[in-house]
Structure formats: C-alpha cells, structure tokens
C-alpha cells in the first residue's frame, strides 16, 4: 500500500464508475498499472465491493432504519468478537460496530416497517445470550450518509467569468 494506492482508493470511493483510462489520465499512471493496482486491492479485500449511495427516502421504498445499542457481557478469550460476528450474519444488520461509552455494540438495522424492525430486535437480538440491555432508536430522517449530504443545497450564484 503506497501513496498511489491511497489515491486510487480516494478516487474510487468518490466514484467507482470511472474507467481505468479515466483514472489513468487523472493520476498520470498507465491504464494497465491502474488496473493491476485495483485488482490487487480487490484481491486483498481492501476494496470490498462497489456500491451506490442511494437516498432511499427519495426513492420512497418506505424502509425504516434503527440504531440499536447493546450492552454485552464479553466472553473469556473472545471478547465481543463471537457475538458480534453472530449478529452481523443477520441480513437486517447493515452496520455493526464496537464502541466506547455506555453501550458496547452499535447496530444499524433496516426493515420494511417499524413492526419488522421491532420484531427483529425483540425476537432475535434481545434474547441472545450475553446481551444485557438494548436501546432502540428509530431513524426519523437522514441528513448525511457516508459523507454525502442528502438534503437539497441551493446552487450558489457564481459570476460567469473573472480575471
């Protein structure tokens, strides 16, 4: 991993649909080298996959998200790893992190509606061994996701020219 790899990652994170040729022109690398480096990053699982940032509220699919915080008793020899891995297998769990503070694990869960989310929490998450407490926060509105503002920003007026 060198400075060039980091640059490729920054470019791809912002727009993964650029072709190797386009990236090559921007970075002054040969297109073949861009391809080789990207393949290596994929093989090393540094690049996990290519996806799209979607404003689901705008798409209007009616999905509901919730942030769920868990207090967990860690396991001898494994800490939080085994229970976290177990939780992360659920399709509904979009994001899972170990955090500091009052709670130990933080999940972001999505479901078709509020009932589905609450059923998932009460039937699958809360009863799990070692989970001592849960706190569920339903997301009311998202303003920013992964660095992307989801609200409309007015165009600022720019002069058509200047010297």
């Amino acid at each position: 991993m060198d400075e060039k790899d980091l640059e490729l990652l920054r470019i791809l994170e912002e727009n993964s649909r650029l072709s190797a040729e386009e990236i090559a022109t921007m970075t002054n690398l040969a297109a073949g080298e861009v391809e080789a480096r990207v393949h290596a990053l994929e093989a090393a699982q540094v690049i996990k996959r290519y996806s799209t940032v979607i404003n689901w509220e705008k798409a209007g699919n009616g999905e509901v998200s919730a942030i769920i915080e868990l207090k967990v008793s860690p396991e001898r020899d494994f800490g939080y790893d085994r229970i976290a891995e177990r939780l992360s297998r659920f399709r509904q769990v979009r994001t899972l992190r170990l955090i500091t503070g009052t709670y130990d694990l933080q999940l972001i869960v999505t479901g078709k509606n509020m009932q589905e989310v609450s059923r998932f929490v009460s039937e699958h998450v809360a009863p799990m061994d070692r989970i001592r407490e849960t706190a569920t926060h339903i997301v009311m509105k998202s303003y920013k996701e992964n660095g992307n503002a989801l609200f409309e920003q007015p165009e600022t007026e720019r002069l058509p020219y200047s010297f």
Partner: protein
Amino acid sequence: MRNFVSERAREIPPSGIRKFFDLVLTMEDVISLGVGEPDFRTPWNICESSIYSIEQGTTSYTSNKGLQSLRDALSRHLAKNYNLQYSGDDEIIITSGVSEALDIAIRAVVDPGDEVLIAQPSYVSYAPCVTLAGGTAVPVRCTEKDHFKLNADALAEQITGKSKALIINFPNNPTGAVMEESDLKAIADLVIDHDLLLISDEVYAELTYEKRHCATATVADLRERTITLNGFSKAYAMTGWRIGYLCAPKELCDAALKIHQYVMLCAPVMGQVGALEALRSAEEDKNSMVNEYRLRRNMFVAGLNRIGLSCHVPEGAFYAFPSVKSTGLSDVEFAERLLKEQRVAVVPGSVFGTGGEDHIRCAYAVSRKELNEALGRMETFLQDL
C-alpha cells in the same frame, strides 16, 4: 460643463471584452471555464466560526493592521510552510483581499514617472494600479518556450534608469507557471543589481502540484526589498470573504499601512475571524481541494492536447493556458466563436497582456463532469472549423 473624469481614470483602459462576457450572461447552458474562483464552498468550520462570532457581537472595527491573533497565526503559518519570517507585530497587514494589498503596495512605493516592470501574461489589475499611482507599467514578456516563467534576459532588456519595481505572480494567473528557487535566483541578481523593489503576488502559493511553492522573499537577499502579497481566496475557497494580506519589512509595511488606514481602515472583522479559523482547522479541507485540482488538471490538460490544443502542464494555480495558434484563429475570435457555437466560455489570453495572445485561459475550477463536457464541446468546435 467640464469633463470631471480625471486623466488617470480616463487613462486606464476599460475591459476590452466586456461585451463578450455580457453575452455569456444572456446565454443558457454555458459551461464557464472563465471563472478564476474555486467551485468549492468555503469549508463549513470556517463559516461556522464566523457566524458564531457575529452572534457573539464581534462586529466592530479591528486594529488597522487586523486582528493581532490572525497576524500572529499568519506569522507562524508563513514560517512553517514557506520559511518566510515576518513579525505579526509590525510586518503584516490584513487587507480586503489581495486586490487591496496590491493597490496599497504599489501606492506605497511608486512615484510619478517611475517605471514598474510587470511579468506578463498577468492578472489584469497590475498595470491599471500602476497607472493610478502615477507610474508607468512596463510589460516583460514571459513565453511559452520558457513555460511562461520570467526569463532574466527578457527582464534585463526592459530595465532602465527609471525602473523602480517589478511585479511578479507565481504560481501564475493565467498561465499556471511556477518559479522554482533556481529560477528566482536569476531574477534576484538583476533585481538587486538594479536596486529594484519586488512585489510578489503569491495568492496561488498553496496550489502547486509537483513541488512546494518557493516564496520569493526567501531567495538570496530579496527579503529586505520584497513585498509579499497573499490571501485566503484561492486556497480556502474564500473569494467572497475578501481577506488578503501584505507582508514586508517594517519600513515598507508602515508606508502601506498609512494608505490602508485612510482608504480601508481595516478588513471586515467577520472575514478575519473566518481566516483565523482557516489557519487553525482547514488544512485538511485545503489539501483535499488541492488534490482534486491536481486530478482535474491532469485530466483536462491531457484532454486539451488530445483534441489538438497544445498546452504545457501548468504546475500551479487552477488555469490551463493552451495555444490556439494551430486553429488559425486569434484568441479573441476563438473565444467568441467557441462561446457562440458550443457554449463554452474561456478568456482570450490577450486580456492578460503581452505574451497572452494566441492563447486562451481555461479555469479548471469546475467539476470533472463539466470539464469532460467542455472538452467534448471544444473537440466538436475544432472539428467544425
């Protein structure tokens, strides 16, 4: 009734392509590569600190020189990043943009009859400011052959017994040229031999893509005879805030300060608060903007050369300055027809003085998508010629 307009005001030329740009305003779907301003918004932490300070009632005059905290922060910033040594107490003035800094610098040193050498192509206000101060602007041609650096021989040819000062601007608007230490040394010898003052506009100092900017006043013994101008507009996307600064040895700084205190009093305090925050916390924002300009530059300059407009690689600022000579059109004709036929606005190089003819200035401070679209339209334009 007499003609009340002063001779000096009459003497400075109106912008020759005013009509051309008035046309841009009336057209729809124009991609403008004509704007010498970042397309990014000012980083929010800067805006937020300024808004907060207004809420706290920080709305008064500041000292003529500007906020002491800002001058001290600048002093440290310049030392750390450019090895420039200026005291925050009496060698830095915060101005209303670099434009004001330029004006007071020129008025502080130019007497009627003095000749002021200007490395051109250059930003359009240098010569008029010299005229307004009663001096005579003497252009020194920078050529494509030298990658638009200032050539010592070309400078020597224009020096006379009346020469008082030299104005340079690197990284350069409109060419994107930079001067490295070795380039500046050759100029320094001439400047010192002929006892000239140097006004160095370094507003694009943060926008270099290959090497760190070399500050003029750090070269040879130039510091004692250099006025360094810089500002926040380009590096931190703060054009509308109007915050620049002038740095010079105390005696020169005091002279400029007298003019500043009568014509401007002080730069707006909310802008100064924002500038201070820029120095404190916007380093990462700045770096990511510079990185994005670099990617765009590589893409755009490669594109220009591909479609047949030869363009040297600009190492700084955010301008590409390709030649349009191969098309047989003058730069003004090229710009006018490109606008009318393909709705892409660029600035004809001759606007920037000697050496700018046969070139156009394209600011790549627009999104990559727009740059690609502009390149496509320019390619169509060239094919239809």
